[in-house]
């Protein structure tokens, strides 16, 4: 498969009033052509900052201190802001979380959707508006011709997110970065938006990086999944690898703390104790160690490297070291392992 985007050893720091926050501490991943990669993590894990770094859209106090972002082998971090402008909204575009605030309140939506066309292509205003209308229809805005001249506040939340998506896809981007696009929406609207994204991916063949904290959403949309914790990836692999053969105790914890529809009230939920670490002073060893029921002495001293689980499945936990003791994951994870076997997977290292 074609790697169209590769992020290598990314480090991002934020200069804040209280000191330097090491928000991203060495992240590697890649995106294949045509696939959907989901990055999951809790708030503050750095998933949003990671994808903003790709387009260099960080807040003013943020700096990428190390790393490479290779787009077709070409390091984007070496490009000037002007050169990046040519890429933004054209080859790589973004969908933001809150549809209520991400549209310009004083510009008609027709103009807002046509804007990326006018920036990147040599088209007339008339043609751009015509194209904008088509795209609005494509994303499911009813009666787009009449509504082109309306302002954002005249649309509902779900419709606004459709408009934001229209803006993002109007130039048929190669890569679409969706930063929690459904978090602010009701569950029925969320389902519609996810269906829309899947449908658009089929139609225009874009690759998607999808950021979310909702594992349910991930299960429905992703081809591959990367789990993030405290500024680093802890596990990545295909969606089946991560959901049915998870290896990192944090992934276990996440999956185990969510009730499924067949969890009954007598099954107690397993919560992950404690809270994520403060990245002003990131811990020396594994950042998850203090909350980890399976923590070992080594976890407090050294960050675990990625251990290979299967061909495309890696997890950064010392538990995968050949010398580590064999531990039994929570019951619900064992159930998932069972399912993995029936799906033809091979459970290793457990």
């Amino acid at each position, binding site marked *: 498969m074609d790697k169209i985007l590769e992020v290598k050893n990314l480090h991002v720091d934020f200069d804040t009033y209280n000191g330097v926050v090491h928000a991203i501490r060495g992240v590697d991943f890649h995106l294949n052509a045509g696939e959907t990669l989901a990055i999951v993590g809790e708030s503050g894990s750095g998933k949003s900052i990671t994808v903003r770094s790709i*387009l260099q*859209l960080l*807040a*003013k106090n943020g700096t990428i201190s190390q790393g490479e972002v290779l787009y077709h082998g070409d390091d984007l971090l070496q490009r000037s*802001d*002007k050169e990046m*402008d*040519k*890429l*933004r*909204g*054209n080859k790589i*575009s*973004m969908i*933001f*979380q*809150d549809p209520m*605030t*991400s*549209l*310009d*309140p*004083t*510009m008609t939506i027709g103009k807002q959707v046509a*804007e*990326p066309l006018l*920036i*990147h292509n040599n088209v007339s205003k008339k043609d751009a508006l015509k194209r904008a209308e088509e795209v609005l229809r494509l994303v499911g805005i009813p009666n787009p011709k009449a509504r082109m001249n309306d*302002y954002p*506040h*005249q*649309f*509902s*939340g779900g419709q606004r997110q459709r408009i*934001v998506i229209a*803006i993002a896809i109007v130039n048929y981007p190669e890569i679409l970065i969706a930063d929690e696009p459904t978090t602010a929406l009701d569950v029925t609207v969320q389902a519609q938006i996810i269906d829309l994204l899947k449908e658009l991916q089929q139609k225009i063949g874009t690759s998607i990086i999808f950021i979310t904290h909702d594992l349910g959403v991930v299960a429905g949309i992703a081809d591959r999944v990367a789990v993030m914790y405290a500024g680093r990836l802890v596990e990545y692999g295909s969606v089946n690898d991560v959901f049915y053969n998870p290896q990192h105790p944090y992934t276990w914890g996440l999956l185990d703390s969510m009730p499924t529809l067949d969890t009954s009230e007598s099954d107690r939920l397993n919560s992950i104790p404690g809270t994520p670490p403060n990245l002003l002073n990131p811990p020396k060893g594994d950042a998850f160690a203090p909350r980890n029921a399976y923590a070992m002495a080594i976890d407090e001293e050294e960050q675990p490297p990625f251990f290979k689980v299967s061909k495309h499945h890696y997890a950064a936990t010392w538990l995968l070291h050949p010398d580590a003791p064999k531990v039994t994951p929570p019951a619900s994870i064992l159930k998932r392992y069972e399912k993995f076997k029936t799906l033809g997977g091979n459970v290793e290292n457990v």
Partner: protein
Amino acid sequence: MAKYILKRILYLFLTLFIIATITFFMMKMLPGTPFSNENRMSAEQLKIVKAQYGLDQSVFVQYVRYIGGLLQGNLGTSFQFNNEPVTALIGQRIVPSMQIGAQAMVVGTIGGILLGAIAAIRKNTWVDTLATFISILGLSIPSFVLAVLLQFYLAYKWKIYPVALWDNFQSSVLPTLALSALPLGTVARFMRTEMVDVLSSDYIELAKSKGNSNWKVVTKHALRNSLIPVVTIIGPMAVSVMTGSMVVENIFSIPGIGEQFVKSITTNDYPTIMGLTIFYSFLLIIVYLIVDILYGLIDPRIRLGNGGKE
């Protein structure tokens, strides 16, 4: 919208009526009459003069007459200035006042918007510090101090502008500068806050992610959105310009309304004070009204109602 404007105009008249009433009764509370210290008038003469001005009737009758006059656009008659009607006084003097007032507003607003926008774009750099310092100076140095300094250095010492003359545009430069400092400072600070807010908003991030250059993000999205709230401070700005114009006109000997007002105060010319008070209030309320309507027109969220359609 039409209903709203109508309602506002109704309020305008109500407010004016209240102001007129308060002004009238306050004037009546004053001890003595403006003629009492003019010894040369005999009791007989005084009576005639009083009758002439209608001062011999009961306060209530005077009040009704006064309000009736107002409704016909009659602001009363000056005691001191050749018995001229106040409206005539205003007519003679309105042009210079309006000229420097308008010039100061334009210079202050445009200058303030630019200063504030630059400060916001270059936030937390020396440019921002400098712009903030300029706007604080504008806010802090009273217009009368500034006027004296400008007059002394630019006109008297260096002879770039006329000292105190009122004939051509040249002579309006210094008063305009002195008057525009306060609006400039006010607008610049307000603009900076608004723009900083707007620049950190989600839709600016989206505009940037579309591939807009930084310049275009500012001109196409940030500027317009930060300008809308700036409209709301035009009203209070008009007040400060008006206040300032009184002293500035005095210092530069400009034959304007402000100068007249100060003169009337020092000579106890009550009808003129009363008339000018109402005139000023009228002007300001009109400005407030225009600003409100303008705000509704340029902000689509207000113009088109706030409810989201499902």
